[in-house]
């Protein structure tokens, strides 16, 4: 397949898959495996959620358990509060988590194939997709799911359990235990850097993340495929040393994220954090989940220091630290081409990467791919305020409110999925606007970068000795520098009005 065929195949398959999931969301009320009797989702929420899961974003404007989480003794459902049936969790959420992860891997591998010497095309999407599922995701998730069950994550199809509590002799109180097919979902949601949790509280909810061991295992799963793909790059193009700029660049930025997050103070357990993870793992998780654009959370974002949020923004705005599985590598290659171009410009040499001359068209593609991001983040952020959509859900025009809205669209554009708003953003404006942003944030860069990869096929390769050595630590350093300058130039004012202002305000008024 050439890049157009490959991209179209991926797009069409993804759209059909999202359509199937839409049907399940919308009609879950009449479909089986719905012991709680959740009604079907509204059309705008269903639309937004299939795009959210289908684009690997996993922004959730609902709580999987409805509103039971707010009531420890939830016995009955409150009408009008959306929740998901077991069938929806499995055949819509989990399904799209598998397929979007597989699509990401396919896209990366296809683009890399363009850079491989003597390759004739980008491969066959159907073959790549099937292999990604059957050879990578199913086996790994099989093991991971059973490990999670062993650590205490439920995996059952029986409905929520209701018991009289220990105190019931005195209080007659009951408690609902929200079980379900959780472990199988958690495995793919972390391994596929999806991040959409079974519960509204995501991996802060004890059933999704019962103890420090499961916490560390989830962090491991999140980092596994994005990191592996850095090596796949060098392996596929037959120059293992070329893994270095991608890997080093990604982890240098990751280290920087950690530095920002831990700069204000070493975190201790505070409100919004789970005791079993403590401050360190809550902050570390937040950095990882945004660095690989997973978006799962194990603490409430509102409870974190503004600098942790700043670090999260950093991960989402760069998307290559090491980024989501597949797209992270693609973005890093994009940044490498930009950097090679800048270095070439400054040293008086026409730039080349892997012996391929970088043409004006390549730079154009890369530029557009880079520019998509600020547009789809900033325009809807302003629109959300100017249309009154923010005041409708009680978000004010102050630094805290701005951080939330800016974060919502940054997360949507980066296909991350973590957010401040959660189910409160279940309004037509936020559902539709984030759906558009997620779709563009996913498929525009993939299309552009596949086109970039496709144009490398049959391009003559220089065997020059005078070019830029991309496998040196020096180059990695320059790469990190140019990525940071670009990201800062584009987003600094908005970070200043959001988390940075929050930080200074907090320092003045006390947190």
């Amino acid at each position: 397949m050439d890049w157009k065929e490959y991209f179209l195949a991926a797009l069409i398959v993804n759209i059909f898959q999202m359509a199937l999931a839409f049907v399940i969301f919308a009609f879950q009320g009449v479909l089986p495996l719905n012991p709680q009797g959740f009604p079907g989702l509204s059309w705008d929420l269903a639309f937004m959620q299939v795009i959210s899961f289908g684009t690997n974003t996993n922004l959730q404007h609902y709580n999987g358990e409805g509103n039971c989480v707010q009531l420890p003794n939830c016995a009955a459902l409150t009408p009008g509060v959306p929740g998901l049936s077991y069938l929806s969790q499995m055949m819509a959420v989990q399904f799209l988590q598998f397929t979007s992860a597989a699509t990401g891997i396919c896209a990366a591998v296809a683009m890399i194939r363009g850079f491989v010497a003597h390759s004739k095309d980008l491969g066959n999407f159907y073959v790549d997709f099937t292999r990604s599922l059957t050879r990578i995701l199913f086996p790994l998730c099989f093991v991971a799911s059973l490990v999670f069950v062993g650590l205490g994550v439920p995996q059952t199809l029986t409905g929520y359990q209701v018991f009289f509590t220990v105190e019931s002799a005195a209080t007659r109180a009951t408690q609902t235990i929200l079980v379900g097919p959780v472990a199988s979902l958690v495995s793919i949601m972390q391994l596929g850097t999806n991040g959409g949790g079974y519960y509204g509280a995501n991996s802060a909810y004890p059933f999704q993340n019962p103890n420090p061991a499961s916490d560390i295992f989830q962090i491991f799963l999140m980092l596994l495929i994005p990191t592996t793909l850095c090596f796949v790059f060098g392996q596929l193009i037959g120059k293992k040393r070329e893994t270095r700029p991608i890997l080093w660049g990604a982890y240098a930025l990751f280290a920087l994220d950690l530095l920002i997050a831990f700069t204000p103070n070493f975190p201790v357990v505070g409100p919004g954090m789970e005791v079993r993870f403590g401050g360190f793992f809550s902050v570390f998780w937040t950095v990882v989940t945004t660095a690989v654009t997973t978006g799962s959370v194990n603490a409430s974002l509102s409870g974190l220091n503004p600098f942790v949020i700043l670090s999260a923004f950093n991960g989402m705005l760069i998307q290559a630290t090491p980024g989501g599985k597949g797209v992270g590598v693609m973005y890093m290659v994009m940044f490498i081409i930009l950097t090679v171009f800048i270095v070439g410009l400054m040293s008086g040499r026409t730039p080349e990467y892997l012996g391929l001359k970088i043409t004006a068209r390549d730079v154009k593609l890369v530029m557009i791919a880079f520019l998509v991001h600020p547009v789809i983040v900033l325009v809807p952020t302003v629109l959300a305020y100017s249309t009154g959509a923010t005041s409708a859900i009680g978000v004010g025009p102050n630094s805290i409110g701005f951080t939330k809205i800016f974060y919502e669209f940054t997360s949507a554009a980066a296909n991350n999925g973590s957010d401040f708003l959660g189910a409160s953003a279940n309004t037509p404006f936020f559902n539709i606007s984030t759906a558009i942003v997620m779709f563009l944030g996913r498929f525009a860069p993939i299309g552009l970068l596949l086109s970039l990869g496709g144009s490398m096929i049959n391009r003559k390769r220089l065997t020059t000795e005078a070019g830029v050595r991309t496998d040196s630590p020096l180059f990695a350093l320059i790469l990190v520098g140019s990525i940071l300058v670009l990201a800062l130039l584009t987003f600094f004012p908005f970070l200043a009005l959001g988390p940075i202002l929050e930080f200074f305000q907090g320092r003045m008024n006390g947190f």
Partner: protein
Amino acid sequence: MSTRFIKMMSVRRTTLVSRKVLIDSLVRLSPLRLTANPVMLIVEITFLIVMAMALDPEAFPRLASSSLQIFYLEVALILLITVWFSTLSDSLAESQAKNTANSLRRLEMEVSSKKILIEAGSRRIALTPSRELRTGDLILLEKNDTVPIDAQVLEGIAMVDESLLTGESTAVRKAPGDDVIGGSQVLSDTLTAKVTVNPDETFINQMIRMVESSKRPKTPNEQAVTIVLIGLTAIFTILIGALLGVSLVLSLAADLSVLIALYVCLLPTTIGALLPSIGLSGISRLYKEKIVAKSGRAVETAGDTDVILLDKTGTITVGNRQAVEFLPFSGFDERDVGEAAFLASWHDDTPEGRSLIRLAYEDGFVPKEMNALDASEVYEFSASTRTSGVKLAGGTGFMLPKSGGTGRERGRLRRKFEPHVEGGVPIGSDETEIIKGAPDAIKKIVKSIPADYDKTVQEISAAGDTAMALSRNREAIGIVRLRDVLKPDIREKIMAVKVMGIRPVMITGDQPLTAKSIAAEVGIDEYKPEAKPEDKYDIVKREQAEMRIVAMIGDGTNDAPALAMADVGLAMNSGTQAAKEAANMVDLESNPAKIIEVVMLGKQLLMTRGAVTTFSIANDVAKYFAIMPVLFASTVPELKALNVLGLGLNTAVLSALIFNAIIIPLLIPLAMRGVTFKPSGTMTLFLKNTMIYGFGGVIVPFVGIKLIDVAISLL
């Protein structure tokens, strides 16, 4: 070396900003003229907006305040000046180009030529304006005529003055087959020549066209830089648009003029303003080296060269070899060899022949047969025998004239010598025949070969020198050691080329041992000995197949295919028309060593563009972080901590805008002159440029803005 040509090429500083240029730059302020420069068009639009704010602040509710009218006026004025500086730079570059074109056109000045018309078998001369001549026309060139157009000599031999073009003041002898260039002058005798180009195809004309055309096609590198500029402009447009929106929705009360000023400061105005003049100046600098390029592209390609083919002769060594030692065979002494060399070389006008006479003379080996030379019979050098020589017929008593007269007089008695014809020309008893030539050629004609013949020759070759054998009356008498003389600082030049990652390949007709020794001496690892002209073509083809960019020089017709194929082909002006047409550059001075300068110039051009781009972008980054915090500090008091420079908002905005404007004229000299650089590897150059233009570009605005700010607040 100050010649008319150079004078014409350089623009006198005093007339740099003439009234014409000023008026032109003002005319260019029209928005319609600015469409070619989108960055500046945007700046002009912002000027109009701020001007409107100054005139009627009420029309901009929430964005402007009527108490700031004066400030708006100041901002608008600086914005206009920014655009004007840019149009001024354009006007300057173009006026300079026009001057160059005009001076070049003077070389092509309209002369009436003597066109030869052949009608009914008889010749007739028609006075025809040179612009009406066409390829194939025959022209007559007489003493004191100016050659109207490039042509090839068909009949006659004449001395021609090409100093107008090359700056070399010596007259050049032109014989049938040679090319004469339009603009040169006939000093003696008469020539019949065939026009080889149409008037608008001459390379001077090509050069004029390129210099003059304002819609010069963008080179790949220029295209790439343009994309970066558009990309940056897009980023900042999105940024400022969003910031305006956020400021409105969050009620931050940021003033529109401040946002506009910030926007203009961020736009890559510096490089946007200077890009056109950088491109033109590269070509001008090439002209200063007296090289004519047919396109700007070729110059930039030169900067990307991977492999450079160097002709040994003329590039690495100073033309021909010099005799340094006479080595007699047993039975003869040094004097025998020296005197024989003197006689054999008397009629040989090549530098090599002259060096033989000089060495013999310096060693005191002036032969007594000298006075017989004038009546001698000359065996001219022939490529097939690779020998030349002289036959002296007895007579003595004539005194030799001090100089040998013209070649023509000396060659009176020339006739072909054919030693391979058995017996050859019989030698009379009172005759002496002396032949010099390649050792293996002499070996064939001598009666017996001395025992140490081969050993001596081999030793000389191994030392990198060349052996020339001498025979007297078909008897080998000795060997002359000829040594290649390296050009001054060629070793350093080769080293510089290698440091930049470019591979030099030496092409020479020498045999392998000699070639190896010379290559080693100048530090070249790759060489092609015993090269035939086709070899150049093969090497170019081979290197290009591996996607390397090849630069080479050439002069003969044999070189034309290779010149046409090479990415950078530099033809010698003294070379054939075919070679000049095939090449994409012509060196008017015919100095093959210039190919290295061309590569360095190409590098310099690319690097200048890169340096100014880097500086401009670094400036933007610095202005960004100088102004943005001030803006925030003024609208959100909690962010005061970010205002590191401690600037006031309005003075900071004015300072940044003023800095933004004046940096453009300040950088014009750098753009015109080009950056200086020390040859080194890509990464080293990058780091150096990052240090100077990157970090420098970040620091300069901070210092500059603070200084201007202090100056403004003092006023």
